[in-house]
């Protein structure tokens, strides 16, 4: 067995330490050691994007990098994105647009969207599709996810969200005020 190494990283705003083996992947450390099971393991080979987290401001597949490589890093998972009360505007937009079905790709999608909007506050649909092209969703056909990211970006820009597209516009619930990121 490999010898343990001590590593330290900031996860969701809090410094954490763990002893791990050099071959242990970041996803397993986050899920099994730190209990952040919101980050999903869909393939373990960097093909599906379900494990996307934000590391030092960039989206990253947590199943592809050894935990030891994240020494000193600042990591945000879906748990850290979620405010104490309610939802982050991107999450809220996913909920309002009906962009969640089985939910297994959802945290990775939300984190990819967050990284995109941080870098590009007004992404076009084409830019959104490119950004999430590494995140597989088998349920939704992506249509409502793209709409949710458009809406989430608008909410984060402080714009009143446009009514979501859909078959019954008048029945869409009112949005609560935009909370802090």
């Amino acid at each position, binding site marked *: *067995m490999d010898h343990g190494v001590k590593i330290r990283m900031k996860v969701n705003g809090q410094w954490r330490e763990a002893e791990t083996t050099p071959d242990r992947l970041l996803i397993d450390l986050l*899920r*099994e050691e730190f*209990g*952040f*099971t*919101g*980050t*999903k*393991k*869909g*393939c*373990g*080979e960097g*093909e*599906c994007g*379900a494990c996307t987290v934000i590391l030092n401001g960039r989206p990253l597949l947590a199943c592809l990098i050894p935990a030891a490589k994240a020494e000193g890093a600042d990591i945000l*998972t*879906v*748990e850290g994105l*979620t405010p104490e009360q309610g*939802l982050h505007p991107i*999450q809220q937009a*996913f*909920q*309002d647009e*009906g962009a*969640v*079905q*089985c*939910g*297994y*790709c*959802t*945290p990775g999608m*939300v984190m990819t969207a967050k990284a995109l909007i941080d870098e590009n506050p007004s992404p076009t649909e084409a830019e*959104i*599709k*490119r950004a*999430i*092209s*590494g*995140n*597989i*969703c*088998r*349920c*939704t*056909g*992506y*249509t*409502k*996810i*793209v709409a949710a990211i458009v809406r989430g970006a608008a909410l984060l820009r402080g714009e009143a969200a446009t009514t979501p597209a*859909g*078959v*019954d516009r008048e*029945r*869409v*619930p009112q949005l609560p005020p935009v909370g802090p990121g």
Partner: protein
Amino acid sequence: MNEKSCCEVIGRSVRRVDSQGKLTGKARYAGDISVPGMLHARVFRSDRPHARILAIRTAKARASSGVVAVLTHADIPGKNVIGQVKPDQQVLCAEKVRFVGDPVALVVAETEAAAEAALALMEVDYADLPGVFTPEEALRPGAPKIHEDGNLLEEHALRKGDPEQALAGAEVVIRTAYRTQMVEHAYLEPEAGVAVFENGRATVWMPSKYAHADQRELATVLGLAPENLRVVNTTIGGCFGDKVSLSAGFFAALAAVNTGRPVRTVYSREESFIATRKRHPFRIDYTLGASREGRLVAAKIDILADAGAYSASSPTVLFKALIHAAGPYDIPHVGMKLTFAYTNNPVGGSMRGLGVPQTAFAHESQIDLLARKLGMDPFELRLKNAMRPGSVTATGHGLGDSVGLVETIERVRREVAAIGTPPATATKRYGWGIASMFYGIGQSARPNPGRARIEVDEEGRFTLFIGIGDVGQGSSTAMSQIAAEVLGRPVEEIRIVAGDTASCPDSGVTAASRVTYIVGNAVHMAAEDLLTQMRDLAAGFLRSAPGKVLYDGKAFRTVEGAGRQVSVAEVVRSARQKGGELCGTGVFDPSYTPLDPETGQGEPMGTYAYATQAALVGVDKESGEVEVLKFVACHDVGRAVNPKAVEGQIEGAVSMGLGFSLSEEILLQNGRMVKPGFSQYFLPTALDMPEIRSLIAEAPEATGPFGAKGVGEPALIPTAPAIVNAIHAAAGVRITDLPATAEKVWRLFRP
């Protein structure tokens, strides 16, 4: 029903009841569950397609660091046999393996890494047997026998009228051979399960769309009375028909019972590809006869399916294919023969549409070819033959009033005309293709009751118990909406427990698009039942007759009595003081008549859904690449309980159908999967998706809850043929075997 007019909640795109947890990461999927002292079990699987097991040597694996136990068939406390339709499969193989991936042993260790490492130390001596890898080979005389009683799994026929004579006299006859490929469900959540065994009782947490069936089957394997095994459904990360029967939770439970410690089993993606069931590949020989005016007169259909190594849900798939293979048309003479054969390939299971996406590819391609031959507009040809109220299906089922097919064809036609077709460029050609379908809601020609129970507590809060799990399509939301509508409460005030054998009634399985229609009816009845009980009690309180008591969602009052009212909570408290318990129950089982074993004639389904879809594609004549640019889908769902969820089903199905038609295929070499996993299995990404226009048609079904039928599988069924027909319209080439890869299309340009 409450006195407010219908409908406050039905027909509204309310927020899903489960999206908050899924968005924040709080939703618990089985692989997220940790129990103190938990062990990890991994399955050791056959790497041979067909072999006799001579010896299973576990000593080295057992001696490996961190390993607690290595289990084989000898360690199964109960019966080592599964198969919900036909019991022909072992949990851990004893004498023989029949496909690459057949489970042979279970390695249980302190960590997942230790279990994984020990898998490499397992030694099994095999005597290889000749393998059979196509259904044609399997049925040849003298073929190696995969099962004792031969390789023919199931064979059925259908006969309506005199198809041979009608075809002989038909003015136009089109005969074509079609092939469809093996497809993986590719739900994003790999199989997982966690089990605890204490004091002779086991509890298993697993994604289970039918907890009661898993409980019954697993209990026999574990040698437990069913009441000593509790199956608790966890959040299901997609299933599309799979995640049924032998799965990770079964292995976790077996390990827990043997070691006495909690155990978790999680499949890797590679294992999920290798071990789980697939969509059956079909070979379809289709002869369609018509008059010169385009009236369909006869169809003769021969289907040969690769069922893989075990029966699994093959019989279910066979009957769905038989019922629907003639398409949504009134054809007086139909003959069919369907043959399902065992092979040493991965097991054919149930996947969204249960054989009907395969048969729809054939009948809708045939209709398109016929339209070309007759020089008729394909919309017109479909309208001429489309099922209408009173039409008779191939099984001889006279249809009722809820037949919205014509509306779906007409609305899609209008939409397609409005969008138009782009002009050809130097290398690209554009064209529209259309396809229609009908689909029977629920399981075919057998009882499949749905049950529901609703309780109300002393605070007046309602809890709905149903045995079926939400597979992601939103059934828990739809069921909550139905209960909320009847009980006059907002959806978020209805608590729901879905799929726990300790508290939920057996509602049947989440499959065959049956939940909204069948379980939805049971929920409706349970809510009405509870309301009646409460109203009766309230009438006593108010010294009035139940017929004169009004209900507003919170309280009852009399029609005439100003100010006199009693709340739901008061009614419940008073009932309890008298030792009574208020609880509404509902059971619904659609009526059917069995199919005649010789002729396949009968009325197998309670109701049918209908749809028409159209695809606009661009075909690159240089590369053969097909791009789907626009998509129009119109579905008769009876009544859309939640329109946004219906749209979600349609959009998701378009992506799945796009993969089925253009890119997805499990490639096997002598039963061995070539590169199992996502890297060589081409699932559609966001970049592949067309703009989708979803249209909802509502031909209400009198026996459905608020008129509802279903949409989950219907959404997928016409997608692939619409795309393939569009390729023909654009580029003049006909794809008869799926998927229509760029290479295949390119080759057709260069014969």
